[in-house]
């Protein structure tokens, strides 16, 4: 995709907005995307799947006073465009008026579009992709005789253009690429099988981890799980590895989101100013990070994104708002319509070895299962697997246990942050050590 495609999609968005205005809408907003990519996977040394992706589509929201209607389609023929605009307008004739509906305020529209360095197309032919995937899988399968089976390795590349425009006259475009490599293998010992995987993802192919590293990591992780069993039920310190710790702060974002707040469906109602995390911990958003996996110059409503802290020195400093929920709460949009962009947990970072020493004994969690999180109350209960730590060292693998607590209490008892940030996730926190949680095992 190139400058010509960009111009074509921008013109499409403008044409749809013109149609909406002609249909009598006071205001309208349109998002259009095109995505092209391919993925190639191998399994047990042989090519398994070659997948070509190419999709497009647009969505429109129209406003007649406080009446709103939405429609979307993958069909960008002239007839379909007209029919989709008409459909959105006809829905708006039935919906009830909500004074909080509408575009984000015009003076909040992004006016600067810094180059975030997100677009790095990868001319990846099937054969080259197959060889890369094989390097990962071969490394994993050859790593140890107990690696007896494979779910394969795959390489993928995607390029996406997304254009957002609204009747303030705002139009913004983002071109971005996303490439990835993953591998999953199965280890067997004493009749028990354990599977694990690893992946790397980046805007630029050169930033991906080497296939051998991905394969080796997948193999190590599967092997490390062998011999896992439950542990006795009790209250212990719990350490979340970086591949799962981001989720803890993902729940924080969800609980601070405007939608949950105005629906009174959050355990952090009236949370602004509350000491939630220990002093010295910040949770910050950096939307303009070059090549960031969630970087964006504007949010889903065209509002300029800015660097900010949601938690500062442990205190809730900002909610996570789009314009609708902001109006409901009597506040201003924080530029987070559609979510957060590159969240990082900052604080005194220590080596994982130091944290393990501090913990002494407890559970290191490397995988979580299930959705047992109640955001209304903060109650948390999930399946977990990982390792039992004794005297600061790994004693044995653990599986088939649950960890339970309340998120507000867990945040208040964070007693250590690791220096091992995982760049693959939108929310990055490194290892997180929590003083105590209930572990149910045998």
């Amino acid at each position, binding site marked *: 995709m190139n400058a010509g495609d960009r111009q074509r999609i921008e013109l499409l968005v403008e044409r749809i907005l013109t149609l909406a205005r002609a249909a009598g809408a006071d205001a309208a907003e349109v998002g259009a995307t095109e995505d092209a990519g391919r993925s190639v996977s191998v399994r047990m040394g042989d090519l398994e799947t*070659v997948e070509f992706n190419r999709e497009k589509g647009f969505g429109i929201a129209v406003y007649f006073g406080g009446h*709103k209607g939405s429609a*979307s389609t993958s069909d960008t023929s002239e007839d379909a465009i007209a029919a989709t605009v008409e459909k959105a307008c006809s829905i708006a004739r039935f*919906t009830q008026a909500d004074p909080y509906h509408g575009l984000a305020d015009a003076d909040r529209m992004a006016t600067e579009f810094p180059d975030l360095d997100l677009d790095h197309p990868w001319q990846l032919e099937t054969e080259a992709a197959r060889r890369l995937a094989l390097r990962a899988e071969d490394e994993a399968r050859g790593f140890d005789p107990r690696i007896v089976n494979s779910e394969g390795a795959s390489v993928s590349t995607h390029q996406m253009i997304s254009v957002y425009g609204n009747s303030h006259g705002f139009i913004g475009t983002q071109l971005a690429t996303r490439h990835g490599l993953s591998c999953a293998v*199965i280890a067997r010992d004493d009749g028990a*099988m354990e599977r694990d995987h690893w992946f790397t993802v980046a805007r630029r192919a050169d930033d991906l981890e080497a296939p051998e590293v991905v394969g080796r990591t997948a193999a190590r992780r599967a092997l490390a799980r062998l011999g896992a069993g439950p542990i006795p039920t009790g209250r212990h310190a719990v350490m979340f590895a970086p591949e799962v710790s981001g989720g803890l702060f993902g729940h924080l974002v969800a609980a601070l989101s405007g939608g949950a707040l105005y*629906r009174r469906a959050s355990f952090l109602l009236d949370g602004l100013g509350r000491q939630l995390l220990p002093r010295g911990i910040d949770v910050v958003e950096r939307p303009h990070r070059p090549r960031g996996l969630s970087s964006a110059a504007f949010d889903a409503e065209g509002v300029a994104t800015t660097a900010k802290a949601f938690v500062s020195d442990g205190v809730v400093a900002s909610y996570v708002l789009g314009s609708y929920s902001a109006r409901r709460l009597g506040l201003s949009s924080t530029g987070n319509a559609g979510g957060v962009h590159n969240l990082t947990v900052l604080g005194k970072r220590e080596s994982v070895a130091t944290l393990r020493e501090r913990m002494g004994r407890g559970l290191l969690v490397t995988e979580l299962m*299930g959705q047992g999180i109640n955001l209304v109350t903060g109650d948390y209960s999930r399946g977990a697997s990982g390792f039992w730590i004794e005297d600061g060292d790994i004693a044995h693998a653990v599986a088939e246990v*649950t960890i*339970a607590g309340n998120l507000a209490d867990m945040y208040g008892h964070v007693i250590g942050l690791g220096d091992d940030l995982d760049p693959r996730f939108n929310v990055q926190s490194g290892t997180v050590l929590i003083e105590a949680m209930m572990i149910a095992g045998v």
Partner: protein
Amino acid sequence: MTDALDRAEAVILAASDLSMRSLQDALGRIGGGGIDFGELYFQTHRSESWGLEDGMVKEGGFNADRGVGVRALCGEKTGFAYSDDVTGRRLLEAVDAARSIVRGGGSGRSGQLLAARPPRRYDAVDPLVGLSAQAKIDLLLGIDAEARGHDQRVKQVNARLSMVHELCLVVATDGTLAADERPLVRLDVSVIVEHEGRRERGSAGGGGRLALDTFLADDRASRFAREAVRIALVALEASPAPAGPMPVVLGAGWPGVLLHEAVGHGLEGDFNRKGSSTFAGRLGEQVASVHCTVVDDGTLEGRRGSLTIDDEGTPSRRNVLIENGVLKGYLQDKQNARLMNTVSSGNGRRQSYAHLPMPRMTNTFLLPGEHDPADIIGSVDRGIYAVNFGGGQVDITSGKFVFSTTEAYLIERGRVGRPVKGATLIGSGPEVMGRVSMVGNDLALDEGVGVCGKDGQSVPVGVGQPTLRVDQITVGGTG
């Protein structure tokens, strides 16, 4: 009513420059020359939804999508490409991309297509046009009034009415020619209650492959509203759940998510062909207690997980997966069935034309036993009685699975006692199924809200079971 094949040809092909002849030509271009199976899957998908909040229906949306997915198989290899422009040129581009897993071109020959017209499992209705927009809005407003009127502790009511109409047409080099017209409706209600500083949520809902007026019949919509309020009020009273292994009685209906996670996924053909499932190579073995007979049945009339044909054109079936505890069969699609020298069980499903089909469940449930549910509860000295659940998840290789309660009670000396907060239950599939010691006579299927995720693809499914007792499973409470 017109036939689904006629409808599909009229709607899908007429809107393009394609004809049945050009589909045959496209199949000829995929097949042969090393490709042992080629398939074209055309789909149109229209959906509409309306959302209620603050006592108003202030959101409504519509989506239309169509496209064609082309698949070429060569042994264990798959080539796949798709297009959301349904034109002759795009179709041939997709054909050439999909068959690029082998060198050279197709044979140009295509065999005879045999039209399949299996018995319909739901009516060919379009739920988007059945009720007027105002009637849909009134239905939602009625839910708001019902929920708020039911108890003054109700502070928020959110409800969503969704309807989908889907038409698919599948042709393949094995002679498949089949089409399906699939309605799908769903109503979700969620409430927030507040009392003395505590807040809780409750949700309920249902649906199926039905017309929208299903929600008007038998007071069904109002019942969902009252059920959501009831669950939320129970949660207000809940105290911490216990922690550790103990007997658990699972209620009838939706708790059948147990079977979906503990058994269903592990029996999908792809995992068993590849040897990655804990159930691989265990046909004929005892994998559950003798009280357990588990079926996957896509033929149930109008159910959310039901299919007249699967997405490969195979008529859906009632498949016995486990009989009296003995493993009888796997869930198969065409590719895995061929590689395992068996036939498709009618479980080849895909989220859309833009996704590859794979073996998936339809409606999965446990057949009823002898016991009165009250006797099952009465048999437990100290444990949990769990009647509503959120989602679950399974690791099919180790067999470990979880599912999380949203409504559960302590059982003390055979009596149902105080409600306990949501807790995740964790166990190993074959072990937990081996500990099913009592099965009730009250088989019920869920109301029709199940969504199953696999490899990033979502499909609608159903679950069900009678009340049953698991002698021991780990309960993830805090107390």
